[in-house]
């Protein structure tokens, strides 16, 4: 099958790539755009390590063809923070030991980011339900939940201070 051009906005930058229709979005992001933050975990829609944000939705990018993202706005972990300027969620994962091996973390944080956009004041239960599509095999989730709740509190405090 022939390649086709796919245009999308990734982390605020307009991108044009050539892809076969059967290429999954996760591989286009990682191998064609060099964004290796989103990980390939199970590759079967279960683990959430490949989670990115697409037009305001948390999506497992292993379960979407890149051509389906034509015209979409995509945010990956690279679009949230940088090593010199970590996102509040990243700071809190660091502070509260929200990761051990770190493999699930990019998916966990992009998912948490969307969750806090939709629900800035989540309860612990909201957080657990909200990240239930992301699997972590190290932490037992306790510190991930703590990190997200603490990031929410910090974001809300910053918002109040700005008003």
């Amino acid at each position, binding site marked *: *099958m022939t390649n*086709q051009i796919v245009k999308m906005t990734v982390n605020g930058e307009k991108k044009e790539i050539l892809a*076969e*229709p*059967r290429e*999954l979005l996760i591989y286009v992001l990682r191998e064609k755009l060099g964004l290796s933050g989103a990980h390939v975990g199970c*590759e*079967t*829609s*279960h683990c*959430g390590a490949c*989670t990115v944000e697409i037009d305001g*939705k*948390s*999506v*497992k990018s292993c*379960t*979407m*063809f890149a*051509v*389906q993202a*034509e015209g979409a706005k995509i945010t990956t972990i690279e679009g949230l923070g940088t090593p010199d300027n970590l996102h509040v969620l990243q700071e809190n994962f660091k502070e509260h030991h929200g990761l051990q091996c770190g493999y699930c973390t990019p998916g966990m944080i992009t*998912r948490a980011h969307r*969750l806090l956009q939709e629900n800035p004041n989540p309860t612990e239960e909201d957080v657990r*339900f*909200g*990240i*239930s*599509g992301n699997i972590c095999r190290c932490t037992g989730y306790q510190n991930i939940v703590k990190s997200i709740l603490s990031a929410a509190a910090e974001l809300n405090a910053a918002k109040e201070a700005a008003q």
Partner: protein
Amino acid sequence: MITAAFEYHRPSDLAGALSVLEEHGDDARVIAGGHSLIPMMKLRMAEVPHLIDLQDIAGLKGITIEGGMVTIGAMTTQHELINNEALLSATPIIHEAALQIADPQVRYMGTIGGNVANGDPANDMPGLMQCLNANFTLEGPDGTRSVKAREFYEAAYMTELEDGEILTQITFSAVNAGYAYEKQKRKIGDYATAACGVLITKDGDKVATASIAMTNLSDVPVLSEAAGAALVGTSCDAAAIKAAVAAALEDIDPTEDNRGPVEFKMHVAGIIISRAIARAWSRA
């Protein structure tokens, strides 16, 4: 995992989608949220030489509630169903059931149309649509027809949907009834070991009507008329619930799989059905 190669079509209207379907026949399939179809394609259990993406067809999206009738476009996602306030007050059982489907990421993508049209006995919406006595609108090259959810499912992945047709919308009457959708699953993201939707209306202290439908307990969703009849006229006491559960269990035919042997599934089904009835009655 790499799927077999295919050509990608993204029509901007339904006529465009129908014409690609007609041109390629068996070689073409529509894709909605893709969270059933893409995994099947990755496993090479589905090969689709022509994939028709419905995402640009605006007419397939949205929820309208008018004169007591609810109409839901096939491309409406589970996430949109969950977050629609008007739907929550018109027919809250949809909210309760949709929250139990898969996980958050899947609910952002998965659509009600895909869920009902795929014919997967493990999907939750088919049983729920039977419980609600919904109608499916099917559009094809020869026009539009309507099929009752209760008559749509023939066997696993076999439905009334003909080649060349697209399921475009779902309609049902808004129901002011006690409701419950109960589901037992091994973990978030798993399909039901057993699930049951119940709607009960009350006349004084007695059950006036009862609709009871089950998910993943046969190769099709099962509406148990006998179970509903066992409740009507009773005060939904323990004896009535027991009789309804017994009737419902007569109507299902679960198979052994990695969720357990048949005996276990019947046991779980009994508990789930009885909980669903009790909770629906408590809200009636």
